[in-house]
């Protein structure tokens, strides 16, 4: 993670891509979102979705996994250049999450992120906050998910 001071509003990155299999969709749904259109091909075909599709929470959770891996790669690159690495803190939440299109079996989602705002933390000296807009697009170029999340980022020389 870059230090808060070094983060530039407008920076974009591809964080990763993931292909949703029927097994993964059903496995996630069984645990957390057991609605028929996430669990069963025949029931999904009868629903307004028309075919088995992933829980929106599955699409969002995969973003988190890819984001953690992306940041780990960035940290490794910083260390390889001999640069210090900042700590990424927890998130107070997110807003404006939109599930724009269903994610169907075999869809590959490419996730990207863009810094849209940063501000100092009033309550926690040593930390800043950044807002990022996260998006997922399928292999046909259709947007499937979008949301704005907020996270604490360590400030330079804070520790």
């Amino acid at each position, binding site marked *: 993670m870059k230090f808060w001071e070094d983060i530039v509003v407008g920076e974009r990155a591809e964080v990763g891509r993931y292909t949703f299999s029927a097994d993964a969709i059903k496995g996630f749904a069984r*645990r957390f979102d057991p609605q028929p259109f996430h669990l069963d091909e025949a029931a999904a075909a009868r629903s307004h979705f028309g075919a088995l599709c992933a829980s929106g929470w599955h699409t969002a959770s995969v973003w988190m996994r890819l984001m953690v891996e992306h940041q780990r790669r960035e940290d490794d690159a910083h260390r390889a250049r001999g640069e210090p690495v900042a700590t990424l803190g927890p998130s*107070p*939440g*997110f*807003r404006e999450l939109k599930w724009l299109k269903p994610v169907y079996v075999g869809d590959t989602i490419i996730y990207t992120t863009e810094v849209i705002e940063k501000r100092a933390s009033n309550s*926690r000296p040593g930390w800043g906050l950044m807002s990022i807009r996260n998006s997922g697009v399928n292999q046909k170029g259709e947007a499937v998910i979008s949301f704005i999340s907020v996270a604490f980022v360590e400030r330079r020389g804070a520790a």
Partner: protein
Amino acid sequence: MAISVSHSRRTYARSAPHLLTRGADRFLTAWDLTRKRAVPQFQWEDFTPGRVFAHGPRRVPRGEMVAFAAEFDPQPMHLDEAAAEHTMLGGLAASGWYLCCILMRMCTDAFVLDSSSMGAPGVDEVRWLLPVRPDDELSLRATVLDTRASKSRPDMGFVRFEFELFNAQGQRVMTLTTTLMMGRRERAAS
């Protein structure tokens, strides 16, 4: 990247024992149960502003909490007690996305599986207010804020909800506001 899928009978026995059939080898999900009901109990007309659905408490077992983090949010504050002590959360705490998923599951068990749910177009806002610790017991309160009919689809309507999760001490740990799409009774019957 390999994201593993684990949904064994043992997982259900730990996290949702009420969904297991007694003595049977296979587990019976809540969905299996609702498939048998031809007309769901809750349709768009039943979600009147101010109506409250409560569910829980539901334990969030350490094993399930850490397994979720390993699969979807492998940061030290969600994975490892010692590493988590030195973070802002001050000890091992649940991933916020795990809490979203648990909230979803509590909603499905509370009313969604017995409703004419057509999914949700999104979530207005989620606030993670306090860390949730391993083995805490969470309770859900779902309050209907307002509803409106769909202009383009006469067979459905929208229901805006505020969902709140409380820990065993009664502290509010998370809020989520969202709009659910629900099938309408009048249209379904005509």
